C-alpha cells in the first residue's frame, strides 16, 4: 500500500475530521437534547476506531489475522480498574503508561507463542488466547468476576498540582479521545513509513522473500504484535474511563470479531479505512436499531452487500475514485 494518500482524499478526510472536531459547536444546534448522548456515542466510536486502527497494523499491514485482539482491549480496561484506588482517582501519568506497558508485555508473551503459527492456525491460536483471557477475568475474583468492575473516579490529568484536563467533563473527554485517535493514526503512519514499517508491510505481502533479504520476520511480527497490543490497551483504558465500568465481555471473541469486521469493512491496510469502518458499522447499528428490533437482519445484509460490492472495503472504493480523478501518483 502506498504510504502517501491522494490529495483529494487527504482533503476529504481532513474535512471529515474538522466536522468531527467541531461537533461540540454544531452538535447542540442540530440535535438539541440528544447532543450530549451523541457526543458520548461519538467518543465511544472513536475509541473503537483506535482499537480498529491497532488491529489494522496486524491484519492489514503484517497479514496477521488476530481473532483475539479484544483481549488486549479488555486487559487495558481491567488494568485501569485494578490500578484505581477504590474511592480515589488514579493519576493518568502513572496509570496510562503502566497499563500500556503491562498490555504490551502480555501481547509480547502471547505473540511469542502465536507467531510460530500462520494462516488460519494463527487466527485460531489468537482466538484461544483471547478466550483464555476472557475466562481469566470471568472466573477469577480479582476484579469482580462475571459482574465486572467499577472505576468510581476517573483518572486525573495533573501537572504541578493543577488539573490540565478534567476527564469527568464529557466534552473534554471527547477531545482527549479525538486527540488520541489522531495521534495513534499519525503514529502508525510514521511507523509505516519507517524502516520497521516497510519491513512489516513487506512481510504482509511476501514473508518468505523478506526472510531471503536478511530480515527475521518473526521478530518484526512480534514487535508489531506488542505495539498493536499496547494501542489496543490504550483504547481499553479510554473505554474504561468513559463509563467507569469493565466487564469480561470486553475481552471476548465477539468483540474481537466485531473489530475485525470494522477493519475489513473499512479497508485493510489503509489505516484511515478501519476508522471509517468503525464509524459506518456503529452508526449503521445505531440507525437500524432505531427502526426495527430485528436490526440484526438488515445488519447482516449490509455486511454481505459490502463484501460483494466493495472487495477492498470502503477505503478501496475511495482510493479508486480519488486515484482516477485526482492527481494521484
Amino acid at each position, binding site marked *: 500500500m502506498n504510504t502517501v494518500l491522494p490529495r483529494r482524499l487527504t482533503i476529504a478526510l481532513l474535512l471529515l475530521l474538522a466536522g468531527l472536531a467541531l461537533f461540540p459547536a454544531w452538535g447542540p444546534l442540530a440535535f438539541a437534547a440528544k447532543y450530549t448522548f451523541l457526543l458520548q456515542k461519538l467518543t465511544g466510536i472513536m475509541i473503537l476506531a483506535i482499537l480498529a486502527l491497532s488491529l489494522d497494523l496486524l491484519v492489514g499491514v503484517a497479514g496477521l489475522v488476530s481473532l483475539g485482539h479484544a483481549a488486549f482491549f479488555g486487559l487495558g480496561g481491567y488494568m485501569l480498574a485494578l490500578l484505581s484506588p477504590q474511592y480515589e482517582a488514579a493519576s493518568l501519568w502513572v496509570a496510562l503508561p503502566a497499563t500500556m506497558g503491562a498490555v504490551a508485555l502480555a501481547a509480547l508473551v502471547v505473540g511469542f507463542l502465536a507467531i510460530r503459527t500462520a494462516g488460519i492456525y494463527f487466527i485460531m491460536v489468537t482466538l484461544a488466547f483471547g478466550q483464555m483471557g476472557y475466562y481469566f477475568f470471568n472466573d477469577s475474583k480479582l476484579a469482580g468476576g462475571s459482574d465486572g468492575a467499577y472505576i468510581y473516579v476517573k483518572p486525573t490529568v495533573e501537572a504541578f498540582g493543577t488539573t490540565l484536563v478534567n476527564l469527568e467533563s464529557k466534552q473534554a473527554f471527547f477531545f482527549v479521545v479525538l486527540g488520541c485517535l489522531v495521534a495513534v493514526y499519525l503514529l502508525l503512519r510514521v511507523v509505516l513509513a519507517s524502516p520497521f514499517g516497510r519491513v512489516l508491510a513487506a512481510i504482509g505481502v511476501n514473508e518468505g522473500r523478506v526472510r531471503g533479504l536478511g530480515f527475521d520476520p518473526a521478530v518484526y511480527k512480534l514487535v508489531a504484535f506488542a505495539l498493536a497490543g499496547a494501542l489496543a490497551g490504550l483504547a481499553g483504558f479510554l473505554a474504561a474511563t468513559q463509563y467507569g465500568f469493565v466487564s469480561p465481555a470486553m475481552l471476548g471473541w465477539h468483540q474481537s470479531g466485531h473489530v475485525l469486521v470494522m477493519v*475489513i469493512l473499512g479497508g485493510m491496510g489503509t489505516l484511515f479505512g478501519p476508522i471509517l469502518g468503525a464509524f459506518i458499522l456503529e452508526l449503521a447499528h445505531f440507525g437500524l436499531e432505531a427502526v426495527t428490533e430485528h436490526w440484526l437482519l438488515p445488519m*447482516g445484509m449490509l455486511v454481505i452487500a459490502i463484501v460483494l460490492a466493495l472487495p477492498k472495503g470502503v477505503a478501496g472504493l475511495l482510493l479508486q475514485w480519488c486515484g482516477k480523478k485526482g492527481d494521484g501518483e
Partner: protein
Amino acid sequence: MDFWFFLIQVLNGVQYGLLLFLVASGLTLIFGIMGIINLAHGAFYMLGAYLAYWLARTTGSLSAAVLLSLPIAAAIGYAIEALLVRTLYRRDHLDQVLLTYGLILIFNEATRMTWGADVHGVPVPEALNWSIKLTDTLSYPAYRLMLSGVCAVLAVGMYLVISRTRFGMWVRAGASNRDMVAALGINVKLLFGVVFAIGAALAGLAGAISTPITSVAPGMGDSVLILCFVVVVIGGVGSIKGAFLGAMLIGLADTFGKVFVPDFASFTVYGVMAAVLLWKPRGLFA
C-alpha cells in the same frame, strides 16, 4: 477412582467428541476442498435443530423429522453456495469470513423471527427413553448411546468414502493441494456446491439428532462453532482423520477437565489447543 465412574466419564467424553466430530467434519471438509472459512457453519447446526424441532412437532416422529431436515439443510447450503459464496473464491479469505459472519446475523435473526425467541426442547423418542444401569446410581442414557452409534457409523462411512471413492480422492487432493482439484478436470463448480451442501447437511444432522439432549434456542450454533474450530485446528485443517482425533481429544479434555480441575474447566479446551499448536503448529494431521 472407581472403575465404573471412570468408564462412564470416558463414554461421556467420547460421546461429546463424536457429536463435535459430526459438526467439525463438515467444517474441515469445506475448508479443505474449497478453502472457505465458513463461520456460518454453526448456523446450519442451529437450523438442523430448529427444523427437527418443528418437523417433529408437525409429523410427530423425531426420526422422520431428522430425515426430512437433512435434504432441507443440504438444499439451503447448496443455494447459499450458488448465490453468495461462489462469487468469492478468487477473493481473500477474510472476505469469506466477513460474508459468513453476515450470514450468522441473518440466520440467527431469521430463526428468531420464524420460531420465536423461546427455548424449545424435543422429547426423547419413547423407544430410546431408558437408561442402562451400571451400578446402583450410575447409569447411561440409551439415547446418548444411540447417538454415539450413529456418529460412529457416519465417521466410518466418511472414512470409507474418502479412502475408497473417486469423490474421496478429490477431497484428499483438495485438502493437500487445492489447485490440483481444478487440474484434475473436475467440474469444480458442481463439486464445491456439493461439498458445501454436504457440509451443511452434516452440521444440520448433528443439530437435528442432538435435539433431545440439548435445548433449541437462537444463537445455539455460536458456541458449537467455536469448539468446532478448535477441533479442526487441532486435527489439521482439511483432515477428516484429524477432525476425528481432535474431537475426541476435546471431548475427553472437556469431560475430565470438569471432573479433575473444575476451577480451570474453561481453560482446559483452549489450553489443550494452545499446547497442540505450540507442539505442532499446523495441527496433528497436516
